[in-house]
């Protein structure tokens, strides 16, 4: 690895002044499972690495607040998977976080880091998107809240300013009863990046949201509120409604799959996720 300086601020103000001082020459470090790979490959060449893990204001847990679960910037995948409230209210997030890397990766990798890395194939992104997650940013100009669907700009690019960082991610509890399910296609069963991934959320009022990953420059969410997707008007209109949503996908061909395969699998996996999400909705309604 190329040499760099290392700073370990204990406060947000210290971290923000380091960012202000070094600008694009500073890189933030949380779990490091993406950053260290990119440092080694020389894709990142920072003058200074700013380690966020000693800032008490950046929490490593999940707290319930203002009608949502707030996931701290330092919360790692392993702890998110094990959180009873996440399991109960956001089981699709458990499914997605469980397939991020290996155990060793999930013990270090943070949800905030997964989002900031802004990979089009980030596994947690589709789940966060269908649930309407909001990213809480902290910067020298003050805090701001950005809906996740506005946070991603393109591959590796977010709206984060040069002296801003992610403080937490809010997952709002749904006001309506709902069910959600995550799905993905990989080349092998174990540790692998997603060829495509997606999440489907169905609400009791018949609203259906899909979020898709690895089929465009950034993960994105689409919605159908006609009721057609839950089969109210028959199979033909359900297929037509799904096709309208899938038309937003613009996959490319790369080492993991070609474009046509992604398009075909997205249709298959969307139907499976819709079925799984609808099943969860029905169980939630039966239990309520």
């Amino acid at each position, binding site marked *: *690895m*190329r040499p760099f300086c290392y700073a370990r601020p204990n406060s947000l103000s210290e971290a923000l002044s380091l960012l202000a001082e070094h600008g694009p020459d500073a890189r933030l470090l949380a779990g490091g499972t993406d950053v260290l790979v990119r*440092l*080694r490959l020389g894709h990142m060449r920072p003058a200074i690495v700013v380690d966020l893990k000693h800032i008490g204001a950046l929490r490593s847990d999940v707290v319930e607040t203002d009608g949502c679960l707030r996931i701290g910037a330092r919360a790692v995948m*392993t702890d998110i998977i094990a959180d009873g409230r996440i399991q109960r209210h956001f089981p699709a997030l458990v499914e997605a976080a469980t397939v991020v890397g290996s*155990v*060793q990766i999930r*013990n*270090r990798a943070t949800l905030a880091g997964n989002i900031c890395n802004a990979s089009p194939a980030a596994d947690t992104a589709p789940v966060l998107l269908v649930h309407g997650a909001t990213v809480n940013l902290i910067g020298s100009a003050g805090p701001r809240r950005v809906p996740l669907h506005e946070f991603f700009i393109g591959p590796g690019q977010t709206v984060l300013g040069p002296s801003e960082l992610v403080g937490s991610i809010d997952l709002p509890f749904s006001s309506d009863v709902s069910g959600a399910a995550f799905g993905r296609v990989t080349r092998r069963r174990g540790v692998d990046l997603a060829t495509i991934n997606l999440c489907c959320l169905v609400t009791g009022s018949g609203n259906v949201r899909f979020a898709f990953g690895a089929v465009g420059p950034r993960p994105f969410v689409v919605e159908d509120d006609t009721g057609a997707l839950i089969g109210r008007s028959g199979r033909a209109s359900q297929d037509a409604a799904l096709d309208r949503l899938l038309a937003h996908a613009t996959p490319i061909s790369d080492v993991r799959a070609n474009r046509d395969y992604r398009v075909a699998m997205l249709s298959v996996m969307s139907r499976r996720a819709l079925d799984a999400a609808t099943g969860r909705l029905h169980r939630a309604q039966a239990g309520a």
Partner: protein
Amino acid sequence: MVPAAIPIALTVNSRRCALDVRPHHTLLEALRDQMGLTGTKECCSEGECGAGSVLLDGRAVTSYLVLAVEADGAEIVPIEGLAAGGRLDALQQAFIDTGAVQCGFCIPGMIMSAKDLLMTTPHPTVEDIQAGLAGNLCRCGGYSRIIDAVASAAGSDC
């Protein structure tokens, strides 16, 4: 400008250690090159192979994806820390008894991942073991005996 070395204090195999580490050096480099603990291996350096797995504060991590300075204040257990009082850990003994070791290069990482698994899942199914070891590659292809060894250790010790 060459960034100066940073003093860190960490616990390795229950012993307090003070080291001066370069900011861009990994925990793996500190263990192997500065402490002479060469049981932990470097292979892919990307988090794919798991050969560099150690326990950091009781959880398996890939030591080549952790900077040495990040381990300041942490408790590290590499493979050399498992045997106690001249007796091998139940996992180590099970790997020998089951014939799970071929070339041996992946085994320290396999055992540290298995250690993490058995701490959280004392009675794993075969599927649990496969999932727990999914981040560890064996190029000899000796997976079935490795899985047998972990299952056997779980039965004997956990």
